[in-house]
């Protein structure tokens, strides 16, 4: 598996885990009475908390991923050359694996477009729910969850483009 695809899968998994934990938290707090349809302030605090957690977790996962990926490449190189390769050569291979070229940039743009479209659909859906008279609690949640889903589907689009080509 290449660097770009592994990185995208890691991001998708991180996003999926964060989304699941968020939904669990909302459900549990709602059941416990901490959150209710009219307690928007508590929901906003929870969302802000999750945004903060999301940023920290994403950065931590990226760092761990890069460390593990580098170790993996180094091990592969060592096995391939039967232990006869120096650190400089391994460093060069790792750098080469992580290079971001024009194809990667084009795929980035295309998948971002898909992510943007999905978050726009989420925004319109939240407005529709508001127009239909649903509580703001539901509207804000649709908006927040659609952002997570957009991120996840953007990742899937990226993998699709890497596998199928553009």
């Amino acid at each position: 598996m290449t660097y770009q695809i592994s990185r995208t899968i890691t991001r998708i998994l991180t996003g999926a885990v964060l989304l699941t934990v968020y939904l669990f938290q909302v459900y549990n707090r709602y059941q416990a009475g901490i959150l209710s349809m009219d307690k928007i302030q508590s929901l906003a605090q929870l969302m802000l908390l999750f945004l903060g957690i999301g940023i920290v977790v994403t950065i931590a996962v990226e760092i761990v991923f890069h460390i593990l990926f580098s170790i993996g490449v180094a091990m592969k190189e060592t096995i391939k050359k039967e232990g006869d390769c120096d650190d400089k050569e391994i460093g060069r291979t790792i750098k080469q694996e992580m290079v971001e070229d024009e194809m990667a940039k084009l795929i980035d743009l295309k998948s971002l477009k898909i992510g943007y479209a999905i978050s726009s659909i989420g925004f319109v859906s939240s407005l529709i729910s508001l127009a239909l008279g649903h509580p703001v609690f539901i509207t804000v949640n649709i908006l927040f969850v659609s952002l997570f889903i957009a991120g996840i589907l953007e990742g899937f689009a990226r993998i699709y483009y890497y596998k199928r080509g553009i």
Partner: protein
Amino acid sequence: MGETIEITNCIRKLRFFADEMTQQQLAEKAGISRQTIVAIEGGKYNPSLELAFRIAHAFNVPIGEVFQYRMIEKKKNGSKKGETP
């Protein structure tokens, strides 16, 4: 009816004649990732003109020896008729 362009390449053949150059080595020479070389070789991605020149430069051959094109006439029923320049 309309015309589309189909771009093909001889990267695999050129790699073979360049001492069985690996995709990794070509990627390093062209300054791109191996995945992009795989995609170009498999016809899944058409590189920019700059990258096409860089690949040709890596093999030390003119660009026409690496990439070729042919015009394909699209008929209404979806069938294609090729025309090589």
